[in-house]
């Protein structure tokens, strides 16, 4: 209970930073919108491939932009931890009786709140572009998958921050999140991928998260056969990256 209170307190502090240091956070809010507009605008024509079965390319892109937006929010939580490590705030937290897990959960909760915000922006942009909402349950599922990926990205970025102890590690946090999305079914369905990317995407958990989210967006219903692989892949990735984020905490105490 105490851990939850501390986590929520730290999440609140993280969210306050959005207002206090806007130059750091505004790009992460704008980028999902840019990705949606730029991807659906530049590659609009690819939607004519038979693999799309006549689906709107803007609707096809919405789950990817929402996922990427959540990824950016996760990266920002890692950058916040790195700044706190550089500034000494993290050391003060460690010397307090706060549960160690709260040091990770706090920034992650903040990332999840920002993910809800960025996903909402993406849906509003989709509405302006003429893509109607897919229905309540599919909509919640898309939000859920975005949050799941945001939590994964947050664990990754916090794990990197705790090891590197500097915000200069931000490019490593960003690069892996970018590549994990781009080397999946980000732009076309799996059946339209050629060569090496088909093999890599098949092994990439983000492929299954995007496929499940996209299925909800495009069909307006929850197709279980496409949803469960996304849930399994997403939660498996979250457990692995959660361990990656938690592992350095014990090591940090000995410094």
């Amino acid at each position: 209970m105490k851990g939850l209170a501390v986590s929520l307190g730290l999440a609140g502090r993280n969210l306050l930073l959005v207002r206090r240091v806007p130059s750091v956070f505004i790009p992460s809010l704008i980028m999902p919108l840019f990705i949606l507009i730029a991807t659906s605008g530049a590659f609009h024509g690819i939607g004519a491939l038979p693999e799309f079965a006549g689906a709107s390319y803007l609707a096809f892109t919405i789950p990817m932009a929402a996922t990427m937006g959540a990824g950016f929010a996760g990266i920002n939580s890692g950058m916040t931890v790195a700044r706190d490590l550089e500034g000494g705030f993290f050391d003060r937290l460690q010397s307090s009786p706060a549960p160690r897990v709260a040091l990770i959960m706090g920034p992650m909760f903040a990332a999840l709140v920002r993910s809800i915000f960025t996903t909402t922006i993406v849906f509003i942009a989709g509405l302006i572009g003429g893509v109607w909402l897919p229905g309540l349950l599919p909509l919640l599922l898309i939000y859920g998958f975005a949050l799941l990926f945001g939590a994964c990205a947050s664990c990754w970025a916090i794990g990197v921050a705790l090891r590197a102890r500097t915000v200069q590690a931000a490019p490593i946090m960003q690069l892996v999140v970018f590549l994990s999305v781009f080397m999946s079914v980000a732009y076309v369905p799996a059946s339209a991928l050629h060569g090496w990317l088909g093999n890599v995407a098949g092994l990439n958990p983000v492929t299954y998260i995007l496929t499940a989210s996209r299925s909800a967006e495009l069909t307006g219903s929850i197709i279980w056969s496409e949803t469960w692989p996304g849930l399994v892949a997403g939660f498996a990735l979250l457990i692995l990256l959660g361990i990656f984020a938690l592992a350095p905490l014990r090591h940090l105490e000995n410094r």
Partner: protein
Amino acid sequence: MTAAIPVIRQTAALAWRSIVTTIRLPQAWFPALFFPLVLMAIFTASFGGAPGTIPGFPPMRSFLDFAVSGAIIQGVLIGGTSAGAAFATDIEGGFFDRLVASPTSRTSILTGRLGASIALGVGQALLFIAIAAIFGARVDGGLIGIIVVVVIATLFAAAVGGLGIFLALRTGSGEAVQGMFPLFFALLFFSSAFFPLDTMVGWYHDVAALNPITYLVESMRREIIGGATIWTALTGIGIALGLALITVGASALALRRRLRVSA
């Protein structure tokens, strides 16, 4: 003529210093090589089925041929941003003031940095063509086609380098110059760098049609995929030259203003 020799020597020395500094800092050159090549590979694997299949995308040997010119322009843009940021770091760190206090020619401060941007742009263009060739891409225009592509990349590198120097001189902050990167990235996406103009629709098509990068990329692309004429080549060269004249002129004015203020 004799007066020009020290300027040329100083330009070469400052350009060499910039190139060596760039090579020593992986964060300065890695993104300019890595991101364009990775995106080229991902787009080729994602959109390989598009040429000749979707309306507005003519048939061609492979999507890789189509993607090379966009990758070169992207690499030059990222490299130019890093070069501008490095120049701003020189200003922040005091190297620029030491140069100004020395008998170094004012022209060479500008041409040295531009020379480095151009050298890196030429290197990137040749490297990207070579790497794409390893994976099966071909330049339809042959040697002349490669020369045209490299000339456009060179002039565009001068244009982006000039813009980077201008921003560095006006802001004196590496962070501010790097902060322009998202805008450059947007310029690239709102063009035909990654997909043909004829496949775009509505306002997005109109914006891309007004974007000069579209015409640079198309000019280079014609040399690679085929269909180049003297006019397509001259269009690309002319636009790149015009952009270079504007940004280099602006950076010269910014240098003069900065020298006047600091005097």
